[in-house]
């Protein structure tokens, strides 16, 4: 099966936050690229969809933005994590790991029996 998966609801925001945590301040294009690469090109992502997610995170106060200059001398809007964003990311990561662990136990019942 080589079909690409759609981005699951709610996971995009987490990916954006994680990207900003590991790469530091970055513009929308960079974030979209990075998410696609990290997924090993297994996600089908319209780059445009990161912008509504960025707007939402900014409204919630988890990220902040300002205009800057890119490595290729282009004007770009850079996003960075705020302190609240870092806290939120930590919480979300833990919640996600837990969910993933539970889900995987459900999906592999053989292991559970042993």
């Amino acid at each position, binding site marked *: 099966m080589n079909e690409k998966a759609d981005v699951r609801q709610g996971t995009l925001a987490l990916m954006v936050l994680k990207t900003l945590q590991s790469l530091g301040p970055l*513009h*929308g*294009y*960079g974030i979209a690229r990075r998410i696609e690469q990290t997924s090993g090109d297994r996600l089908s992502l*319209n*780059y*445009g*969809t990161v*912008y*509504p997610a960025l*707007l*939402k995170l900014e*409204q*919630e*106060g988890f990220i902040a933005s300002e205009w800057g200059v*890119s490595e*290729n001398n*282009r*004007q*770009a*809007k850079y996003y960075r994590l705020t302190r609240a964003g870092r806290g939120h990311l930590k919480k979300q990561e833990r919640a996600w790991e837990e969910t993933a662990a539970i889900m995987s136990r459900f999906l592999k019942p053989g292991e559970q029996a042993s």
Partner: protein
Amino acid sequence: MTRLRAALVRLAGGFGRMRREREWAAEFESHLQMHIDDNLRAGMSAEEARREALVKFGGVESVKESMRDRATFLWFDTTWQDIRYALRSLRRSSGFAITAILSLALGLGASLAVFTVADNLLVRPLPYRNASQLVMISEANPQRGFRHNDVSPGNFFDWKAQNDVFSGMAGLRESRSVLMDGDRAEEFGKQSVTADFFPLLGVQPVRGRLFTAEEDRSAASTDTLLLISYRLWQSWFGGDDNVIGRKVQVNAVPRTVIGVLPPGFYFLNREIDLWEPVGLNPAEDYRKTQGRWMTCVARMRPRATVGQSQAHMTALAARLETAHPEFNKNWTVEIEPLRDSMLRDRSVGADSAPVKTSLLVLLAAVGLMLAVACANVANLLLARYSSRRREIAVRASLGAGRGRVIRQLLTESLLLGLAGGICGVTLARWAVTGLLLLAPTNLTQSANIHVDSRIFVFAVGLSMLTGILFGIAPALVTSRSNLVDALRGDSRSSLGAGGHLRAWLVGAEIASSVVLLAGAMLLFRSLVGYQALNPGLDPSNVLTFRVSLPAARYEKIPQRTQFFASAIEQIEHLPGVRSASAVMYPPFSGPGFGTWVNIAGRPPAKPGEEILALIRTVMPGYFRTLRIPLKQGRDFTASDNLETSPYRFIVNQAFVRQVLRDEQALGKKINTLMETENPFGEIIGVVGDLREWSIDHEPIPTVYYSYAHLNFTSMIFLVRAERNPLSLSEPARRIIRGLDPAQPVAEIRTMEGILGENFSRQRLSAWLLSGFSIVALVLAGVGIYGVLAYSVTARTREFGVRAALGADSGRIIALVLKTGARPVIGGLVAGVAGALALAGLLKSLLFGIGPRDPLTFIAVPCLLAAVALIAAYLPARRAAHLEPMEALRTE
């Protein structure tokens, strides 16, 4: 928190939309450029690089759209669109809009006006420190039916010394006095108060000082201090600071102004400009020398309740009754919160129904009327939405969600509510002015009533609430309807939930109208009863005015008698004057004087069983001038009106009936405990009864004195004119000036005006309730018409079929009327039941009829049924006159 923050940012996002859009465009452009740069580096052609970047981005416009959704609340952008749409559609159906707005404006205007008055009188805090602790203390004699009698100074000082529920107690008395400063002279209201009166209320003078307890004690002998109102300070003394220490005269006695009270200060009566020490000495026992004449106000200790204070004072009064049986037998104490006391209507008599009852009845009535108005608007909205089902269905099929449709409909009803609210406030301003003209003046003189910003906010809130509440039901009903049916324009299914709701609304309107009409009719019949009642005198064409002689300049009684006698004689010679006289206080004008009476030859009454009679002192010609019929004997003459002439009395028929038990009155000797010396005197005449204070009781026994034997410095002149009594006021004033240039004339009124004041409370309630019920009646009629007219339109095809099959117009009319009959009959039954249950509340306002007056409860449902029939007949006739072919072809 996160959510709140996001919401605030989004709300703020409603502004600066242009800037936001430009920034997004720039950000996307830079995104695409960076992507293109990368693609070019990867070896694509310029065109391919651009295309790939755009594809990968995934539709700039759709991204922007979903960002717009996020950037601001959707409603923020679309609300304006909704408003414009609503305005357009309201303008298209202006008849509907005007009816709805008018309904709301009437309902809101009336309720706001009544609310304003009630708020001022019932709710707004009184202008004294911790006013809820203030109570009025009265003496009460349940045996004689006195609940709020004046207080004896002797008892007052004992209460003050012996109670432990009050932190303070003060006494006062009201009178009118002539103030003289140089050659200016004018009559003003005056309160004589104990020294702790102002501290008790927590009032400080703006200039000068108050007087001390010591100065109060000695005031009887020295009599020199005076406090004036801010208003008088400004108008008479031009706000001059030198007014402190100024020498003036009050009733020709020298006084020194020591203080000015703060602007707007009043206690019980706004028409007071002078305050002086009452001059009582706590060491004296006034029970031996004086009667009950003081008003008493007290402050309860913090956290004390009226009930506790009452219980304590009742016990104290019982002790005083035992200690002074000759004075206090059967007397106890009544405590009343200050506000309740201010709401009692003093002009009709001390124990009349409180104004509070009238106000609460009016509030309830206005609430009902508002309910009818709202039901009517809801009804109209329902009818309107039902006829717009197809339009709504089109909008829905073009992709409008249910929420969006409801919002659109709500916007419309909110707009209606707002417009109705604004019209209502305007209406309320006029209505308050009108209300105050009708209201009893003694009620409004202690309140300063106007529509303020609080009321405005209340009104706008109320109208918005009306809009939402009565818009939401129709909107829900309408938006739920079946899309396909609606698109097909299938009217057979359109009498569903909306139709039932509307029938209920009409039923409720009818029921409320019945209650209102029944109340109005009961009050009106009482008013007619009052006014048809023979007052016992002829009030037409009688001028009255007050002249208060300064006792210091008219020290001797013959001087006073001489003054009044010559004034009356000169006035009687004026052209257009039939006769003139004077009396110590005119009938129907407020509380009177009463005292014990003894009859020669009968043993003195035991304490508590004394005979009480009303006392009135008159100049000769009094009965002729007021046309009070002389039943036996003769009137006083000038020769009875001399200090040296023997005591003679005239009594009324009630006196003969109740006191003399119908024995021969003429020649019988009586005396009254009015002065220190009370010689017995012969009864020389019997006159007819007046129905004052006794509208619904027996008339009160009355004893008339001749002026020379019981004289007062202040008398009310009565002048019977041939016509237009007020035109005589200037000539009369000239005569008084001619006798004494420094003598002012005050309180120029007509006897009819005085009598009218007595009924003003009843008149106010009756007129207002009638107004409300007429509005409710009209609204209910519009409601019935609306329901049936709509149902006829919806059933056009059915009627067409019936007509084609041979139904004649009579049958079709009957069919339509039957549709309307159910809510009407249901509403009538519910309304009559409700009115019967509520009429008990009106009991204290009724006169001559019971709260279950049969005529009212027959006439009101008949009247409503008639209105309903007319309202139903119009659409019925339209149905009957439908052309069958036309009707079948519709749709």
